[in-house]
């Protein structure tokens, strides 16, 4: 009796061991791919897009690498997804989370081959993850009370984050910048308020955090290039042709003179608007939309600096730094809050002219100008800095910190090992496996730095046997060292997110016993 096909053409079904195999292999392949970028001596990857122009990205940011991959294996997609979430949620640890999930699955594979049921593995992993988290919680350091110490904690975290990136040469410089920028946000996590301007030329060391605000726009012709004690009106209004918005209105005339009249009226209207704007007593006008020549001329006549086409974020940031409100109607000049700043001037960075607002009132937003040899360097620098900023802004809210350099993993591994010894039954094997997966992270860090990982990790384990030890891998000197002395710190939030989402992802993949792939949707040939 022939069994009719149940699925549509091209759909496939994989079951049991084969399905599990397919997902293990996919997940481990992805983990191995990003493994070599882990740690301070991690390597970079070149990503070449297949799109037009074959644009090239050089990066060692796990999330960026995985985002650009075209992956067909569903289990691998789960890993890509957790890395993306890690990026959105805490900003750093995007590589670690994938590597840890990959290691957990690698260990799980061994357990499955030795005939332990996936559900047992999951139960063990859960217990282990819980225990590991408690172990971290016991050892966190919280310096929120002590502002000075907290700042130095942040500095250290920023330096630790940056040391694995392209900015590691000037990590102190950049760490300083990042910490300053984050402190300016005053506890908000809205990183949009930090503008990163990339200008090729110069070296990375020339990058700076501006105490004021920089807008990447040009000043209109014939308008003052320098204004002191500026009163700024930040606006979002049409300054091209201010059309009648009532639906269905149209101009219909029967003679040329009338056309001229209407045109005159339109001009008059624009003039009115400009006058109203000028009535605010401003000397600088920033608009989100275009400003046409005619109003621009009017502004120039009045000696007002008019800046057109500042984008949405630019406007918002400007509103934040200068304290002005974003206006769209101009009938009540007395009650509109204007922005203020001491000095507006045109500055040159490299070959580009930018507008610089200094001496601002609120200073909640700020600008970081990155300089560097090429676009690739700048892009990577931006990503690195973004990672650091994310971690810092999260740490400001959750001030618990941990030591870095493989220290947290070793602490967790030790506790988990102890739990394994106490647990009876098959779960004990899986808990042990969890601890092995944790140790894989310091091993990878050491491997990537070209060190003798087996030796170092064994040393580290011995060191950790004593209570309250601060030992971790010091990649620079290539030996086990005291992390507290070397100032290598990591945010607790990052580590916790890595641990939990890696376990969650591993659990998810382990639970699968069948993969059903639908036929790919047929696309219209666009040839």
């Amino acid at each position, binding site marked *: 009796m*022939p*069994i009719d*096909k*149940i*699925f549509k053409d091209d759909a496939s079904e994989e079951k049991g061991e084969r399905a599990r195999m397919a*997902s293990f292999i996919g997940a481990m392949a992805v983990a191995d791919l990003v493994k070599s970028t882990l740690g301070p001596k991690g390597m970079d990857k070149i990503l070449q897009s297949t799109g037009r122009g074959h644009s090239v990205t050089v990066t060692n940011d796990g999330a960026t690498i995985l985002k650009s991959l075209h992956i067909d294996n569903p*289990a691998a997609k*789960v890993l890509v997804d*957790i890395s993306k*979430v890690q*990026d*959105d*949620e805490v*900003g750093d640890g995007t590589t670690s989370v994938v590597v840890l999930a990959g290691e957990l699955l690698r260990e799980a594979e061994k357990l499955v081959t030795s005939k332990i049921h*996936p*559900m047992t593995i999951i139960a063990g992993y*859960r217990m282990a993850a819980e225990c590991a988290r408690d172990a971290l919680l016991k050892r966190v350091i919280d310096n929120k009370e002590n502002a000075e110490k907290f700042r130095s904690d942040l500095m250290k975290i920023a330096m630790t984050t940056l040391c694995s990136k392209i900015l590691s040469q000037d990590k102190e410089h950049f760490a300083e910048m990042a910490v300053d920028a984050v402190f300016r946000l005053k506890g908000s*996590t809205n*990183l949009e308020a930090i503008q990163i301007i990339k200008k090729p030329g110069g070296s990375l060391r020339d990058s700076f955090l501006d105490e004021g605000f920089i807008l990447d726009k040009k000043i209109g012709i014939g308008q003052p290039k320098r204004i002191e004690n500026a009163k700024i009106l930040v606006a979002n*209004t049409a300054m091209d042709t201010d059309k*009648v*918005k*009532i*639906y*269905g*209105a*149209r*101009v219909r005339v029967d003679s040329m003179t*009338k056309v001229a*009249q*209407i045109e*005159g*009226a339109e001009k008059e*209207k624009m003039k009115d608007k400009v006058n109203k704007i000028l009535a605010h007593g401003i000397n600088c006008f920033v608009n989100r939309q275009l400003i046409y020549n005619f109003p621009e001329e009017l502004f120039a006549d009045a000696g007002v600096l008019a800046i057109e086409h500042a984008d949405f974020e630019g406007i*918002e940031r400007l509103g934040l730094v200068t304290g002005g*409100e974003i206006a*769209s*109607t101009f009938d*009540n000049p007395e*009650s*509109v809050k204007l922005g203020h700043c001491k000095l507006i001037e045109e500055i040159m960075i490299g070959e580009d002219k930018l507008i610089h607002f200094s001496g601002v009132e609120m200073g909640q937003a700020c600008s970081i100008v990155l300089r560097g040899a090429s676009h690739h360097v700048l892009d990577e620098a931006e990503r690195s800095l973004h990672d650091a900023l*994310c971690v810092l*802004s*999260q740490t400001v809210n959750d001030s618990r910190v941990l030591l870095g350099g493989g220290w947290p993993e070793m602490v967790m591994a030790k506790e988990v090992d102890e739990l394994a010894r106490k647990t009876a039954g098959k779960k004990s094997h899986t808990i042990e496996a969890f601890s092995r997966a944790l140790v894989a992270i310091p091993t990878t860090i050491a491997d990537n730095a070209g060190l003798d990982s087996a030796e170092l990790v064994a040393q580290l384990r011995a060191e950790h046997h004593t209570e309250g030890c601060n030992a971790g891998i010091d990649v620079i000197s290539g030996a086990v060292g005291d992390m507290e002395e070397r100032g290598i710190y990591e945010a607790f939030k990052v580590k916790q997110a890595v641990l*939990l989402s890696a376990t*969650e*992802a591993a*659990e*998810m993949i382990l*639970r*699968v*016993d*069948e*993969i*059903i*792939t*639908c*036929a*790919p*949707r047929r696309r219209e040939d666009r040839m």
Partner: protein
Amino acid sequence: ADLLGFSHSNHFRSETHSSFFLAVREKKKTRSELGSDRGKFEARKMALAFDEFGRPFIILREQDQKTRLRGIDAQKANIAAGKAVARILRSSLGPKGMDKMLQGPDGDVTITNDGATILEQMDVDNQIAKLMVELSRSQDYEIGDGTTGVVVMAGALLEQAERQLDRGIHPIRVAEGYEMASRVAVEHLERISQKFEFDVNNFEPLVQTCMTTLSSKIVNRCKRSLAEIAVKAVLAVADLERRDVNLDLIKIEGKVGGNLEDTELIYGILVDKDMSHPQMPKQIEDAHIAILTCPFEPPKPKTKHKVDIDTVEKFETLRKQEQQYFDEMVQKCKDVGATLVICQWGFDDEANHLLMHRNLPAVRWVGGVELELIAIATGGRIVPRFQELTPEKLGKAGMVREKSFGTTKERMLYIEHCANSKAVTIFIRGGNKMMIDETKRSIHDALCVARNLIRNKSIVYGGGAAEIACSLAVDAAADKYPGVEQYAIRAFAEALDSVPMALAENSGLQPIETLSAVKSQQLKENIPFYGIDCNDVGTNDMREQNVFETLIGKQQQILLATQVVKMILKIDDVISNSEY
């Protein structure tokens, strides 16, 4: 050609009789092609009719391109297809059930063990398989839980039916036997069901039931907290006097990031939107909310019209009007005392600024469903025109605040402490997108279970206990029926055993050994509460393990599965396009 078929119908040989009816039922415009070679057609076993002169003619259009299965072959093929679908789901049953990973046509990945979802996304082609998909879906709509169980049940019934067919029992007799047996089973369930006592202050039993549902999902790590959330949500919106729950009032919102433990129940509404103007206040206490479905834009009459501007004066007046219009709109909202405007449509830049200027925070582009929920929660009225705004129509909320998440610019609006807390939101957090989706599905199941219990307080015990009890009852009843149906009824009893069997199998127990042990225990002690000990707790007594299911859910499972199996058994002819 149908007509042609009719005109010749008197002369049909009897063997082609059924095929003729099929031709009519299919309502295909068949083009009669007088075939030349009679032997060729007979070799293809196609429906072939001969008129009085012995000329063959064809009833199905392009019939040489169709494959056809008839009689027992058709039933066997259908049963095989149904079984194949059930086989896929079988391993997902129970607390130790595994998940399926489904890759959609666009490469999107879903990981789930919810039967309805698996079948829905499976991209099934076979007609019978589609029936099974429908089966699971109707269980989902009706009950919301037990979607896997119903398919496994149907698969087992089909498997048993196949054996009966092999014995030479006519499919209709099998179907009838099943029908009788299902009646017995449902009645027996009613008998063994227990009333289940809970009230608003003591909802622990409800939580226990929801935990049973959640324990088979990936979220079983925090089943306790999720079950509590689900029960609280249902109780918040339940109308306990009318014994009804409108699940539409529970909004399930998910956001990637954080942990599952951070999932929370909000007595209010969560909207995935932020304030229309970045400088509006982020927190409003004692908000009076104007809920509008009209845009802050110039009027758009629905009739087609044109305003012609031909003089300067007209241009001027129109301009004035426009300004005035915006001003009036905002002023109206302000006049009635609104402190927050929630609008379904967009805002013009100018209106937006006016709102902000007059210190009237506003939210735009809020979806219709959300708008309704907000209206229900805050006790406000949805106002379609500015003219109709009155202070009574405003909704009230104790606190409205904007909260940002993670490092990306994502904000959500919490509307809390509402005047009428009849609408609630369950806000799910989780490590990745698939996790959130699966949690949503699991919570939905738990909500449905809680709702069913409020509607009908009867429960039966889970872990296969109810199925085993039914199986015993049906087996005992079988002997009372004279006739061939007796065998079908016994087969039904056997099929009922397959659910506990699958449970035991998935939990890594010896299926036959475990089942027979439990069965004899039930029979010996005459207590229908013994089931499969899936979690290795050490007792078979489901009362101790607190594993229940709703009575209506179980009854529905049996009835739906029987219905579908009957339908499949009644098909004796399958015509499909053959591969070419």
